[in-house]
């Protein structure tokens, strides 16, 4: 599995004052850009500028000037998209949801077509509480937009937020507010049902319309830039290196705690073995828990439905569950691989020679 190398990977080469400048500029530009603007073009330029200055051993002020805020404002102005483009980009984010909702409605429609008794209501015209869902999404997004502005204002004021904090606030708000809004609407019994056929038509027209219009707009109004072929690395190697970095940090933190308590330092391999054992036990309990959850869900469905419904449900559940479990366990597999390599080569995981080259 491949992934593209981004400016964040290259930014890891920055050190000292160049890294400090990058961190501050990233927070500023991320906060200043609006929804629909892309941070990559600006940050690629910034990282390239700082790497060049670092290589030439020129002070940061030589390339950014004495007023970092003015420099950042200049970068933001240069990379701000037009209002129409940003609106289109924002609407494109919902194309996926429209396809999902339309797809689910079509599946339900086909299910009823093949399983309903003769004389049952035409599934094309069965009411769907789509308006409640849509209202929830729009209200949640409006509140999220206001929160986005408030957070950006606070970030600018405090300027101490780092990328992880900012992302965490954003995702907690998105999930929290979205869920709360839909929950409140459902409590209020705000139900306006519309026929399924109209929901399907709306989703198809939205997805197709936004996609086509966006393509036409880009072709007509956006400058035709030569696309730079992405540089790709193997995700497995990237994850392997990430595991080494994370395990180093955990080991160092643990040894600092032990030193404070007056306990002796543990050999890295010995400590790592203990961590692997803990992880194995935790893994057994997690898998057991998931099996219980899935079994409970299957039994619940089987009690209320016919055998064919239960089978369909189990197949969908497994089809979703297995790739998720595989992805979640990729970190565990890499940690086991690292442990095996450390034992074979008798190499301490603090050693740089463990890192796989990522270019």
């Amino acid at each position, binding site marked *: 599995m491949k992934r593209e*190398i981004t*400016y964040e*990977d*290259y930014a890891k*080469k920055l050190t000292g004052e160049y890294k400090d400048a990058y961190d501050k500029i990233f927070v500023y530009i991320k906060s200043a850009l609006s929804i629909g603007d892309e941070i990559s*073009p600006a940050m*690629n*330029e910034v*990282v*390239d*500028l700082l*790497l*060049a*200055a670092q*290589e030439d051993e*020129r002070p940061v002020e*030589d*390339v*950014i*000037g*004495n*007023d970092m805020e*003015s*420099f*950042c*404002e*200049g*970068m933001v*102005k*240069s990379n701000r998209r037009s209002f129409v483009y940003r609106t289109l980009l924002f609407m494109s984010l919902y194309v996926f949801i429209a396809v999902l909702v339309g797809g689910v409605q079509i599946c339900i429609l086909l299910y009823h077509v093949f399983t309903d008794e003769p004389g049952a209501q035409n599934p094309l015209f069965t009411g769907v509480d789509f308006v409640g869902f849509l209202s929830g999404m729009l209200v949640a997004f409006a509140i999220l937009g206001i929160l986005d502005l408030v957070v950006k204002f606070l970030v600018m004021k405090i300027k101490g937020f780092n990328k992880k904090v900012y992302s965490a606030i954003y995702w907690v708000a998105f999930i929290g507010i979205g869920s709360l809004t839909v929950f409140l609407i459902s409590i209020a019994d705000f139900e306006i049902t519309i026929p399924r056929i109209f929901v399907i038509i709306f989703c198809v027209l939205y997805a197709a319309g936004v996609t086509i219009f966006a393509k036409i707009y880009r072709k007509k109004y956006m*400058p035709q*830039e*030569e*696309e*730079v072929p992405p*540089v790709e690395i193997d995700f497995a190697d990237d994850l392997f290196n990430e595991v080494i970095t994370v395990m180093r940090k955990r080991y160092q933190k643990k040894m600092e705690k032990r030193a404070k308590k007056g306990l002796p330092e543990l050999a890295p391999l010995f400590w790592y073995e203990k961590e692997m054992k803990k992880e194995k036990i935790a893994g057994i309990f997690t898998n057991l828990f998931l099996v219980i959850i899935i079994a409970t869900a299957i039994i619940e469905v089987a009690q209320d439905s016919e055998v064919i419904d239960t089978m369909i449900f189990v197949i969908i559940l497994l089809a979703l569950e297995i790739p998720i479990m595989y992805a979640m366990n990729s970190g565990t597999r890499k940690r086991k691989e690292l442990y095996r390599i450390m034992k074979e080569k008798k190499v301490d995981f603090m050693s740089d020679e463990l890192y796989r080259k990522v270019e």
Partner: protein
Amino acid sequence: MDESQLLKGILEGCVLAIISRKETYGYDIIMQLNNYGFHNIIEGTLYPVLTRLEKRGAVKCRKAKSPLGPVRKYYSITPPGETELKEFRILYENVTDTARHILFDELED
């Protein structure tokens, strides 16, 4: 009087002149301006200037992977840009000649 106010009027022309010599990129332009003696103009001004020049077709931009890794924008002058630079040079000479007379004629007398 603030030097940056005077520089704002001529920065576009200077940047266009640097780009006209050969295809170049942001860091190189900043270094050349520094070498010529313009040290304090960088704050917030160079990249908007490059964007304005590109939007009106005076320069064209191509993206390529830099030797250091990130995607870099390389700027080169276009035929309309060459014309604009020629006009700027004439205008600059006229303005500076006039300004020199106003500022220094009394002193020379």
